[in-house]
């Protein structure tokens, strides 16, 4: 989490302009979004892995009718249909994972930029690291 400039040593009168404040606000927003994205990416990766495992199990199994979970129930669905469904779900999850990762990269670079600007102005009076 971000701590704001509690510069105890100098007690200097560092002027904070509206632009600085907006930069700090933006940094805070980006930081929050970054943490949300990390959680979402973790979930998406797990889902991808699960679908992968399900696909493999399906190949190994012999049954003609597979119990496929839709909502809260397990519907008896023929094998090919299940294969198709799993493929579709894998693609969708993979695409969503890619989007999340792109967004995360963009946020990381934006945060690095803001860090540069804010540290340049405030030096020690501000702490933008995770504690």
């Amino acid at each position, binding site marked *: 989490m*971000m701590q704001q400039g509690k510069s105890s040593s100098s007690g200097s009168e560092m002027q904070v302009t509206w632009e600085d*404040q907006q930069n700090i*606000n933006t940094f805070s927003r980006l930081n929050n979004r970054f943490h949300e994205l990390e959680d979402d990416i973790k979930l998406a990766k797990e889902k991808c892995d699960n679908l992968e495992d399900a696909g493999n199990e399906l190949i190994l199994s012999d049954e003609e*009718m597979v119990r496929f979970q839709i*909502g809260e129930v397990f*519907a*008896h669905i023929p094998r090919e249909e299940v294969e198709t469904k799993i493929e579709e779900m894998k693609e969708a999850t993979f695409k969503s994972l890619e989007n999340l990762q792109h967004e995360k990269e963009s946020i990381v670079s934006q945060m690095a930029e803001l860090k540069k600007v804010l540290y340049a102005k405030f030096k020690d009076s501000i702490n933008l690291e995770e504690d």
Partner: protein
Amino acid sequence: MSSSSSPSGSGADLSERRGIPAAKFIQDVETYLSQSGFDSNSALAFHQERLQQYKVVEMKLLAQQRDLQAKIPDIEKCLEVVATLEARKGTGESLLADFEVSEGIYSRACIEDTDSVCLWLGANVMLEYSCEEATTLLKNNLENAKASLEVLVADLQFLRDQVTVTQVTIARIYNYDVHQRRVKQVTTPTAIAAADS
């Protein structure tokens, strides 16, 4: 880079949003303290209290967000089930489904080709709809839930901005206070020395 007299830039310059008061940005601490008549301690106390109030609202909004985020996958699952039933409609085959009767106990149901589904609306009410109506209703609910979530997320962002502004203000008033005390400490001994000599 001179500080302008009024906040410029982004469209988020509201004095309040849905009942949440905005935290006013202070251009200069000294001017603020003299204009408002606060001294450092009472100004700090005021802003700390504001911060607490913001935190309370944040808790509430976060809880609402969690509810909505749980509701949306539910609606999507229902849509999937209705879509599966609709897909089966033409074929005339019945669908075999295993559903949970109780923890660890499942029962098999044979779902005939059907035109209608029953939707649980909450409050012990269940209504029968045709497949198309059900799909429309569920899609509407999904759209509404997603829209509400968007508004909520925007509210939370606004709130977090106000929290950040208030935290920075508290830090600045504190620093100003420390600075003032230092200055006073330096000048007072000098004044005494001057009076003695």
